[in-house]
């Protein structure tokens, strides 16, 4: 007869969130905010790869997937930039310094920053899509001599929606990084580009045949951006996108994030365009 245990030995991890304390809240735009987090207990760092995400839990409210947007080499604190779009993000925005959030992760695939060594790097972001790309940019800038030209193309809806404004200004002042920002609709005293981010690709300074491109934004923006890059000569295997779907578990078990044969949570969120181009052109997949 097999022995009976009164309690189970199988841990429920990674299904249980770990408590993290909010060190700092930063309001980025009208509807986006950045949280700086540290483990509530202990000083363990948080290691992750650029492009990966965490499941963020607000006590009793719910849990959602949010990409990590900090510097992957600064593991002391965990940074998440979030846009308020639903119940959980609304509750999250109401949190203040010293409040506690639950974290599970990091999960998913990452931007190919190591594979892209010696190449030109083109990052194309739309709206809040700059947040998941920022860790890749940090990595590239931390190891600047490993790469060729580095270009950031960023499109926001209006000048008020531009994320990480201070940092963008710093990046723009660098001689080894080309930053182009455009808005769909100019307001106030905006004197920069007006138009879709795809329009910036034609004149951006990079060697298409030796380029790795990473795109994050709305699905339709990623589709047109990828096509534009390929038109300019970037190989479709060298174009990467970050996909989004409903997620409940983050670990490939709940089935929600299926995208054709892929689970976005474990096979993605970062995919090469070559892998998923056939799905991006279909409706309601």
């Amino acid at each position, binding site marked *: *007869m*097999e022995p*009976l*245990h*009164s*309690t*189970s030995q*199988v*841990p*429920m991890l*990674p*299904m*249980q*969130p770990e*408590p*993290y*304390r909010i060190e700092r809240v930063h309001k980025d735009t009208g509807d986006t905010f950045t949280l700086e987090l540290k483990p*509530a*207990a202990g000083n363990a760092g948080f290691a992750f790869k650029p492009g990966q995400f965490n499941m963020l*839990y607000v*006590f*009793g*409210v*719910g*849990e959602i997937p949010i990409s990590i947007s900090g510097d992957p080499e600064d593991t002391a604190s965990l940074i998440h930039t979030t*846009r308020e*779009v*639903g119940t959980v993000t609304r509750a999250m925005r109401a949190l203040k310094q010293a*409040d*506690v*959030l*639950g974290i599970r992760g990091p999960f998913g695939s990452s931007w190919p920053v190591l594979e892209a060594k010696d190449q030109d790097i083109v990052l194309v972001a739309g709206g809040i899509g700059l947040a998941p790309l920022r860790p890749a940019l940090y990595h590239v800038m931390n190891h600047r001599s490993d790469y060729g030209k580095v270009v950031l193309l960023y499109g926001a809806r209006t000048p008020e929606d531009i994320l990480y404004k201070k940092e963008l200004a710093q990046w723009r002042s660098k001689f080894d990084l080309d930053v182009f920002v455009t808005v769909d609709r100019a307001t106030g005293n905006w004197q920069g580009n007006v138009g879709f981010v795809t329009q910036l690709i034609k004149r951006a300074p990079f060697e298409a045949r030796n380029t790795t491109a990473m795109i994050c934004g709305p699905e339709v923006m990623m589709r047109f951006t990828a096509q534009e890059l390929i038109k300019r000569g970037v190989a479709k295997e060298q174009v990467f996108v970050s996909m*989004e*779907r*409903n997620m*409940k*578990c983050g*670990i*490939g*078990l*709940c*089935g*929600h994030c*299926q995208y*054709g*044969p892929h*689970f976005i949570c*474990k096979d993605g969120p970062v995919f090469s365009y070559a892998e998923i181009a056939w799905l991006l052109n*279909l*409706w*309601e*997949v």
Partner: protein
Amino acid sequence: MQGYRLEPSGLEQVFEKLKSQSYEIIGPKLKDDAIVYDRLTRVKDLPIGLTDEQGPGYYRLKKRNDDAYFGYVLGPQSVKHYLHPPVFSLWQAKRTEDGFAIPKERESAPRYAFIGVRACELNAILIQDKVFLDSDYQDPVYLERRKNAFILAVNCTQAAPTCFCSSLGTGPKVEAGFDLLLTELINETEHYFVLETGSEKGQVFVKDVNLPAASEAELEAAQNRVKATEEQISKKLPTEGIKDLLYASYEHPHWDEIAERCLSCGNCTMVCPTCFCTTVDDVTSLTGDTAERVRRWDSCFTSDFSYIHGGSVRPSSKSRYRQWMTHKLASWQDQFGSLGCVGCGRCISWCPVGIDITAELEVFRQERGQSESN
């Protein structure tokens, strides 16, 4: 083939022995006009003398003219209800000074002995093993229940018009994944079982029961019974080229035609023994001091299933049925190396409008000029 002869009266002995080993016996039982898996306390709880009639959108029970214990084909439920519970509390958290804390200790998983598991259902378990255990992150809930399980399988002695396991190599003969296997034999003079063992656990179990070996004739009768069942199966699901066929059919107009009938009710996903999708509800106590995460089965036919900010990714019935069928027959192969279908036919019987996955597939196949139906 080796086997033992077990008299119907010996079944009680099997039940008692399972109980003495602290198993909770889960087997077929009459409930709400259907045969469902439920807790059994004695052999008399089995649906003795009952059988089922099935067809698209049709399931009825009727009396047999014998006292067969396993004389039905399949009920709406599979053992998935027990290995992958429909509702399960993943954790409870308490508010603390450090935010919240989740106790690491949990109640131990139940030890289930499943009685009457059919070949298609066993294959569904093997498929769910890949989903929940052959992954970077194992599902602890499934893992514990699966490890604890004792499986007494039963060979099908009759088939329903909705059955198509023989096309998929998942039945009707039980081949692997069981501890004990019964084939029920009834003729004018006798009613007995041929019992086979399929695991060490099963062999140890039988040793103590002291059963006579089955004769050559009895073993042959058992084999013939299953062969006869296979001959009854008329429905087919040809699998050749099925993945490419469905991947090439994403924009086929037939999805619109199916969507005119499909109610998006999700019944097919609830009765399917391989469907594994779940969602979670995060709830709190009234005082807000404790919170809980409850996992429950979900269906790709609901609008919430694919919701992201801004709306559902699959707002139409067409896209949901397409997702379900393409997953079962095509993308499942890329994900887990097999089909997500075992040919049990439950999705046909329990579809309120009688949509038949094999018939719908045939439309896609015909139109691609690939029909393999004679």
